């Protein structure tokens, strides 16, 4: 058994898992506050990564400035998306809402392919060093940065929801929309804000992923890989999203390891999370931390 490889893969899994966790958090945020399952989450990553890339390459803006511009762009984009496309869908059946986000996903995926092409592009170099040595393992600085950013985002989420007025308003809306409305919280504003935050934070994850693997169409796969993570954690639990993300990240790398060492089935990395997803749905459909949906007549 190749212990070094195993260790390396688990580390990779944890790092990617943190990013799954971040994307999962955005997903849960949107679901909790607006009851919309966002199938276009992956396109937020894709769009954010491409926009940042365009800022850096076409306009030659330094990285951190470009990064901030991307954030601003994506925040506006998220809010506009909610205003134009998703607000008319309030009160429609689940299938319609799901289909709208799927439609958005198709549209933006094709749009980015049309504008930026299908070939993967790499970011201009941000870090000097090729790899950093930590505890005998070589880790790319971009990975390290992604880890730091992911943890920072998670702390940011915690502080935002715990200590800010808007965070409180969002939690109240998620808990009981009508009660929140009657207490003077603008539910419309909360909806728009949650989409804005989700778009911005997902775009951050997209930029970080883009720096590691290059920007390409495959980034939007994150939007689908996030489903096993959030279902495992429970669709409406932010903590669950992080735990689920880490688990799925490690799990797919472990599956890859066992497959390459013993089983030789192939393609396990991509497909294992979906088997896990089916198993969870079969035995524990509300996940580890999700609230059970009890229906009363």
């Amino acid at each position, binding site marked *: 058994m190749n212990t070094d490889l195993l260790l390396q893969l688990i580390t990779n899994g944890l790092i990617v898992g943190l990013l799954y966790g971040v994307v999962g958090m955005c997903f849960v945020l949107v679901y909790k506050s607006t009851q919309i399952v966002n199938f276009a989450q992956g396109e937020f990553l894709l769009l954010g990564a491409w926009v940042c890339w365009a800022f850096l390459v076409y306009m030659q803006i330094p990285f951190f400035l470009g990064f901030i511009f991307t954030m601003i762009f994506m925040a506006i984009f998220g809010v506009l998306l909610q205003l134009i496309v998703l607000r008319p869908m309030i009160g429609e059946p689940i299938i319609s809402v799901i289909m709208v986000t799927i439609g958005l996903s*198709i549209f933006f995926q094709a749009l980015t392919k049309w504008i930026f092409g299908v070939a993967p592009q790499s970011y201009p170099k941000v870090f000097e060093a090729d790899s950093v040595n930590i505890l005998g393992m070589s880790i790319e600085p971009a990975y390290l940065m992604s880890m730091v950013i992911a943890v920072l985002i998670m702390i940011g989420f915690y502080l935002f929801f715990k200590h800010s007025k808007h965070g409180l308003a969002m939690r109240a809306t998620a808990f009981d929309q009508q009660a929140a409305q009657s207490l003077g919280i603008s539910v419309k504003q909360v909806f728009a804000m949650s989409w804005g935050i989700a778009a911005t934070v997902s775009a951050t994850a997209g930029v970080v992923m883009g720096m590691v693997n290059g920007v390409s169409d495959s980034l939007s796969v994150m939007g689908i890989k996030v489903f096993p993570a959030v279902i495992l954690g429970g669709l409406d639990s932010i903590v669950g999203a992080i735990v689920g993300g880490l688990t799925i990240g490690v799990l797919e790398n472990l599956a890859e390891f066992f497959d390459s060492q013993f089983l030789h089935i192939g393609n396990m990395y991509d497909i294992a999370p979906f088997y896990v997803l089916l198993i969870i749905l079969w035995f524990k459909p509300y996940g580890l931390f999700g609230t059970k949906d009890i229906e009363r007549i």
Partner: protein
Amino acid sequence: MSTSVTMRPCGDFRTSYKQDTTIFETKTIRWFAILAIAFACFAPFILDAYYLTLFIQVSYLGIAALGLNILVGFTGQISLGHGAFFGFGAFASAWLNTQFNIPVVFCIPLAGFLTMAVGMMFGMPAARIKGLYLAIATLAAQFIIEDFFGRAEWFSGGSAGSLAEPINIFGFTFDTDESFYYVALFALVFMFIWGCNLMRTRDGRAFVAVRDHYLSAEIMGVKLNKYRLLSFGISSFYAGIGGALYAHYLGYVSAEGFTIFMSIQFLAMVIIGGLGSIKGTLMGVVFMVLLPEAMEASVSLVKETSIGAHPMLVDGLAYIKEMAIGLVIILFLIFEPEGLAHRWNQIKNYWKSYPFAY
């Protein structure tokens, strides 16, 4: 009162359940339907081969889409894996034919039943979960089946794909567009009449009851699990038949076509046509088949002008088509969530009471 009148009376004068569930409301509609089918039988002598291929496309996609409408529109379950079931039917039919030498005519229904079994297997979570959880479960099914196509060489030929023989009855081979057109027409009419009749039976009404209010349905004695699973089965059966027709029409099945995008296109057909409307399904399919063609035509129209020659428009046509599909889904859901069938009824009602709405 006679069971069938020539014109529909203004207002609702139906007195029996039989009148309420009749397929053709008036004699006129029935004669028009028969006339349309009779006319369709002569189409290969009049129409171009291009239109025939479009029709054949409408037919196999339409059969599969009707299956999805039974599941989504009539039973209220959501499936994001219909494209994979369609593909499974295609591979299953080719596999049965080449492996066991079963004549293709029997392979197609057999492939339908095989797909039905697979669909019911993946539909089993529907007994426990519903709504978006079910959507996500079927999403997983889509990826797992797609992965299966890629790796199961004994079944699908792996990445090389598999060959499918053309349909052959009594020594006559349906291998041209003109001859296959009749197979497609027969299959389409047969499956649609079957679908219409299914919805008039106890099972069909149970589906609608499960969709409208599942708790009430359960209290009324409708077995929820049975009907959810049955709905999955029937929908996959339709998908399998559609897929098998597709396989034997093209003569070759490759694993790449049956992606999540195809599943989404099926859903788009059903939503654009109208959820819970059999007539609407056909409208939605026609719309979705014609949309790329219309895009192509409009791009070639502006080709001569200065905008049209722009490389982004010429090279990006495939992406523009995809974008159009996404955009059409969004616009329909925002502006006409009940689909083309609803709009059609509105137009009909407007003209029926023209010029005096009473």
